[in-house]
């Protein structure tokens, strides 16, 4: 374990009293964010997100499988995160630690609970075959704030994911094909527009002509994380800030300005006022990050 020198902690709090941060940012300011999409050819969708020195890669793979018995007509998504030893001297190989599991679950909830992926549109044959979406998060370089980097990478990857229909055609029988075809036509024919957005105009009779199509998504919420050190609330903590933080709060907000997910972490506590402050900062920063995200996917 990296041991944080006490004088570093004292210096960060001393700066805090002067309204400053160790890297010169203001309390609610993010580091520079870069998003690069389609970085992995083998993945159905992928994105690399840099927040300052932190780098996270997310890849999406899809497969066809059985739905859960209690949700026979919805697709299945699952999220995994690996804290690979490449990213930090303190990460060890082996099964995911609780940190990695918490991260994966928070990202998963952000996507699942706000129904960012329209899973009901990913049913092929009810009760039998649905699309499976695997979100795999790879931490490449750890300099704090993995929550925001990971969820942003997951969103950018999902938003550029193409459902690999052509690769799986062989696995669909006659029944699946008919069911899926109708489904596609229902879902992807926009009222008043004749054109079918997934490429082929004669899909009714020729499923072979169906191209891969974008994963059906709605406008996603954006996660913003702040930490509390003494009485200061810092957004987008860098590693030095994160390791000495007393408490952490992640707030995901949507484009309408509503709150869609929250997660408080670490053993410190927040006051009501501090929570309000984090929500305000999450809304402001969320808007900016949303612009960056939309630019990265060419929107």
């Amino acid at each position, binding site marked *: 374990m990296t*041991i*944080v*020198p*006490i*004088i*570093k*902690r*004292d*210096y960060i709090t001393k*700066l805090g009293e*002067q309204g*400053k941060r160790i890297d*010169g940012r203001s309390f609610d300011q993010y580091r520079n964010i870069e998003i690069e999409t389609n970085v992995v050819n083998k993945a159905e969708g992928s994105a690399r997100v840099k927040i300052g020195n932190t780098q996270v890669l997310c890849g999406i793979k899809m497969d066809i499988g059985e739905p859960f018995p209690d949700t026979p007509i919805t697709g299945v998504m699952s999220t995994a995160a690996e804290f690979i030893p490449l990213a930090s001297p303190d990460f060890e190989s082996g099964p995911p630690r609780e940190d990695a599991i918490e991260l994966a679950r928070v990202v998963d909830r952000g996507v699942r609970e706000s129904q960012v992926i329209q899973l009901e549109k990913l049913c092929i044959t009810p009760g039998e075959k649905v699309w499976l979406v695997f979100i795999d998060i790879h931490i490449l370089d750890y300099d704090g704030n993995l929550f925001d980097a990971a969820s942003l990478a997951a969103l950018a990857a999902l938003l550029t994911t193409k459902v690999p229909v052509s690769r799986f055609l062989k696995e669909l029988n006659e029944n699946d094909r008919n069911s899926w075809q109708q489904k596609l036509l229902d879902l992807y024919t926009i009222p008043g527009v004749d054109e079918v957005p997934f490429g082929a105009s004669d899909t009714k009779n020729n499923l072979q002509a169906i191209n891969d199509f974008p994963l059906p998504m709605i406008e996603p919420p954006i996660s913003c994380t702040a930490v509390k050190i003494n009485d200061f609330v810092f957004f987008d903590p860098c590693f030095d800030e994160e390791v000495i933080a007393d408490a952490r709060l992640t707030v995901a907000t949507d484009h309408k300005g509503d709150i869609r997910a929250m997660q408080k972490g670490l053993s410190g506590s927040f006051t009501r006022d501090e929570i309000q402050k984090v929500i305000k900062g999450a809304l402001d920063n969320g808007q900016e990050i949303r612009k960056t995200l939309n630019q990265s996917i060419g929107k």
Partner: protein
Amino acid sequence: MSNEGRQVVIPGQILGETPALRPGRGTFVENKKILAERLGVLNIQDNFVHIIPLRGRYDPMVGDFVIGVVEEASTSNWMVDINAPYPALLHVHEVPWEIEFADTEKYLNTGDTILAKVLSIDESKKLQITLNDRNLFKLKGGHLIEFEPSVYRRIMGKKYSMIEIIQKYTRCRIKVGKNGRIWIDGDAEGIEKVLSAISMIEREAITFGLTDRMEEFLKKDAKDVR
């Protein structure tokens, strides 16, 4: 060798032959050929071929001043991280305080920062450090940063010229450990200025004339320095 930059060499690169030249630090000999063992800058002095490393962990030598961070206190000693491949041992006899048995934590505890000296290195690279010398103590306040240990000499400069210029223009108290750690005490602006000076040295470490450029750089925005 050009006048502007020095020659960068890489592992396995042939640097010369014995006996015309003699192998120094960072080199090895194979069939009379002197080769570089690591990434660095070539330095030939009095027929000795040295490599000044550009990257890599701190390689401790007896007598080095280092800045350590206490990892663990036990009944009769402390383990101290000095940025070397191995932690260093600080024995209770090597501190200036009278310590009763198992009272070590009262004096130094996990996370404390000390300015120490490398006392000994044995064959299996077990390290010992000491606080029993002048100007060695526990550091309080200020800020601690790390730099590439290989640029230590550039940060100090010839006859300490570089570090003196930095202290003069930033009005900070600075302690530089040979192990790639710097402790800085002063006001926030001063510390910030030191940080940019250090990163400038790291970026431009293998070029000549750095001290002059540093003075120019520090003079900017330092109008209040008389």
